[in-house]
């Protein structure tokens, strides 16, 4: 199982999914209307490292985080 966490203002409970890469995650999340805008402006981290490829593989126990636009300070 891969755990999906939605950070900051994304008001969504974590998911536990049986997926093997980010492309599968993209397909699943795109089905939810409410998530579309967040998908466009969010960065993605796997096990707390930011990633830039949809081919990033996922294995059992991995954590994927969605990081919406930031504004510290």
């Amino acid at each position, binding site marked *: 199982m891969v755990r999906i966490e939605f950070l900051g*203002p994304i008001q969504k409970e974590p998911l536990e999914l049986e997926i093997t890469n980010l492309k599968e*995650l993209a397909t699943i999340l795109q089905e939810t209307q409410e998530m579309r805008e967040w998908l466009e*402006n*969010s*960065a993605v981290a796997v096990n*707390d490292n930011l990633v830039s*490829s949809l081919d990033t593989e996922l294995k059992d126990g991995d954590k994927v985080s*969605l990081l919406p636009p930031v504004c510290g*300070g």
Partner: protein
Amino acid sequence: MGIKYLYSLLYAVDDMLELYDGSLDVPSILERWYKEEEKSNYGAYIPFIGTIRDEDDIDGLSFDVYEPILESWYNAWVQKAKEKGAIIKMAHSRGDVMLHESSYIAAVFSPKRRVALEFIDEFVEDFKASAPIWKYDLKDGKRIYAKDRSTAIKGSGLLS
């Protein structure tokens, strides 16, 4: 390195990112950092202090911090500073910070002024663009995501 939770200012460790619940005690942080490095032979010390402005009828701001990625972001900057013979320090608030209170201090110490002046600018700007912290306006008893003032992290949209 790592993240330090400071509910009281009993001790300090170099290079640690400091997270506080609520507003920062700016004078005491600036003094402690100054004294920590007083004998380290840095010629320039530049802190940047961010304070909540009274605008848009807000009562204050509130912050969410995602610590694991903030820590790795910060550690990368500690390393960049080291390559220039400099060091950085940073403190940030979690939760609510009211008008005219401060929520953020970033500081650079370096032997020479040019490095310090350039580094504080790059460090603060990258913080604004990349650090995993989310800001909310406190207004009429509500906590409203400051979407219009937020910046998508580089590489965002991967899943869209």
